[in-house]
């Protein structure tokens, strides 16, 4: 039997002190279920619904060493008005940038309803002292970030120091104040679905508003089965405590068709209540244009060349 994570003395859980059992995950059956959900055939109106929802759920992301204020400004414009040719296309949920670019992003999206998310806590590795991570979090929030995407300390997790991981999330949550906290598990470093489930429950117990698959910096980022595994953990927490935690698959979602598969999986696992950007985000950069292309095809009946969609 798996051991419950050791909780720091005196710590009170966010809601009721009940959590679902850690349990385990059967990899073969999980992957089968994910594959079978991916075969749903979503057509016509139901497809347009999904694609528009996908746009509203995107965290439009740029996380490069070469990011500049100019690049982020362009990204922000794209986020607010994804398809200049069609004002009916909604804005995306947020732009996601490195800390240094938060001020630019905040200035550019002001008043649009688009949120600014900043990665923090020594993204992507998380291998820095806690105090410097907390300073970083406080700084991005002061600069106006609405959301903080932190990484867990995988080194601590994989060496069994769950309390350290837990404590760090709690401290980051405090430091983030009113900003929404997304906790990145970096699933491809965790190695097993059992670990993904355990880390998901740990993050939710520590106060995560969202759990997120990946930094996007490693191959094998978000997959349908790993996302399903995390959705099932979210469902268990909801059933036990009534608390709704959000989900963010990130990395590797490039095609409109994939985004529909992710939404079908969400719909059939957590239900219609989760079909909102408040509880689901898709971390992506190139996905948006493919979704726009599909939406235009649904409207006009023809595919248009990539040249008709802006590359911001």
């Amino acid at each position: 039997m798996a051991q419950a994570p050791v909780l720091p003395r005196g710590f009170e859980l966010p809601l009721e002190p009940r959590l679902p059992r850690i349990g385990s995950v059967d990899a073969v059956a999980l992957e089968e279920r994910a594959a079978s959900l991916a075969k749903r055939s979503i057509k016509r109106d139901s497809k347009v619904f999904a694609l528009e929802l996908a746009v509203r759920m995107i965290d439009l992301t740029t996380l490069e060493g070469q990011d500049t204020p100019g690049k982020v400004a362009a990204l922000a414009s794209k986020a607010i008005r994804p398809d200049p040719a069609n004002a009916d296309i909604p804005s995306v949920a947020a732009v996601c940038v490195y800390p240094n670019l938060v001020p630019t992003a905040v200035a550019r999206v002001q008043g649009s309803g688009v949120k600014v998310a900043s990665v923090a806590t020594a993204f992507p590795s998380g291998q820095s002292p806690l105090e410097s991570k907390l300073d970083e979090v406080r700084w991005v929030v002061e600069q106006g970030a609405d959301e903080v995407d932190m990484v867990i300390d995988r080194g601590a997790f994989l060496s069994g120091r769950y309390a350290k991981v837990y404590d760090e999330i709690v401290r980051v949550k405090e430091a983030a104040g009113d900003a929404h906290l997304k906790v990145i598990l970096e699933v491809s470093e965790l190695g097993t679905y059992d670990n993904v489930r355990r880390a998901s429950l740990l993050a939710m117990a520590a106060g995560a508003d969202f759990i997120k698959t990946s930094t996007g910096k490693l191959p094998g980022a978000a997959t349908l089965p790993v996302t399903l595994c995390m959705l099932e953990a979210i469902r268990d927490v909801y059933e036990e405590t009534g608390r709704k935690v959000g989900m963010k698959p990130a990395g590797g979602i490039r095609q409109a068709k994939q985004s529909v598969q992710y939404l079908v999986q969400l719909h059939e696992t957590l239900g219609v209540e989760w079909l909102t950007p408040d509880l689901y985000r898709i971390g992506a950069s190139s996905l948006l244009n493919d979704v726009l292309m599909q939406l235009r095809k649904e409207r006009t009946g023809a595919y248009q060349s990539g040249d008709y969609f802006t590359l911001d």
Partner: protein
Amino acid sequence: MTDLEHTSDSALVPKDWTYAPAPEARDIVTLAERYGHFVGGEWIDAAETYTTISPATEEPLAEVGQATPAEVEQAVTAARAAFDDGWSSVSPSERAKYLFRIARVLQERAREFAVLESLNGGKPIKESRDVDLPLAAAHFFYYAGWADKLEYAFPNQRPRPIGVAGQIIPWNFPLLMLAWKIAPALAAGNTVVLKPAETTPLTALLFCDVLRQAELPPGVVNIVTGDGSTGAAIVTAGGVDKIAFTGSTEVGKAIQRELAGTGKKLTLELGGKAANIIFDDAALDQAVEGIVNGIYFNQGHVCCAGSRLLVQESIYEPVVDKLKRRLATLRVGDPLDKNSDVGAINSKQQLEKIRELVAAGEEEGAEIYQAPCRLPEKGYWFAPTVFTNVAQSYRIAQEEIFGPVLSILTFRTPDEAVEKANNTPYGLSAGVWTEKGSRILWMAERLRAGVVWANTYNRFDPSSPFGGYKESGFGREGGRHGLEPYLQLDESEAFGG
């Protein structure tokens, strides 16, 4: 304490997300108005016919033959002639070639067969497309490989064909059961008279076209359609050397009585009331998927369906809660819609049987839960159903329902699980869900069932033998074991069999 509600500027949550209909096109299938019987490589006119329908809509599809004893005799004579005139002396590698051809043609025409299977049988297209057709082709491929290696399958026993095999198959997996029967029979060098089930004859009739495409010599496979009386005529026909039957235990027993003392070989694959056993350390969400797959796959029209759920009492509540929640997401409806998870009940008669047993369950005091779903008005439909508070003595825990109806019982210890699982006249299959490898082996040693699945359910493979204990029948289909009923082996001659 964290404020957990998203209060301000919340985005709108949609009321629902209805998937648009996604029907598989029907026009790939061309049906004749009237079918005869396929005898000696030709269609012969049927003296009597009946109408076969789509159980999802009750729409008539075609007139098919109701074979008389004389027509059956004609088919048996054709099979005997084909056996004597050459099929038994065709070289094994040539036999393999025909089987490989059949397998490939089935793959090429998979969509056509899948649509027809769903149309005539009511099962969802995603199952006929992803399960029935690939497995049917796989069986022909698998036994094609054995045709010229029989000496290696049964070393030192001089395997030889038996002669004419009479094969009677059920309506739950019409084409797949045909493949299970015909592939090993031909690989072993026999000829065949096969009768598909009364309610689902169409894919077997379409299969005759595949036989022609594969240029199988005339008379090697003969197909006659009809009800139980046609089946009885095959069983009693003088020229038949072996009977293979898949269907109800009641009919199986009657066949066995009929054949006693005739020297005809017999294999029976009959009913089941399988236990699907969930231990408290199982991966719960996946176990729930396994429960759903175990009993709602093919509307529960599965002889090895996991119709008795045995849950360890310590996890009874979460399992039942999860299962009920999952049931609400099952999409029941048009079998040809690619998003349907559960299709139509195969026939009016079967629907009545399910209704009768479900009523008995309620009367005996079990608590019923049915998934909230809107059933189509026409056709034969039954909502996925779960019974809790079921005692081992209730009819719903004893009798095979053969429908989408699950009975949930509890156990406390592994010993009790084994005891309850085995406490049935059947013994076709069982499922065990636990993360503990040693417990899987411990359980498998003790469960008296032909197949024991661990952390999965309803998984089939041509290389894996399938068959029952006790009233679930005898003889094995699939794998090397599946060849044996179609062969004479020196060993058996020595014992006068």
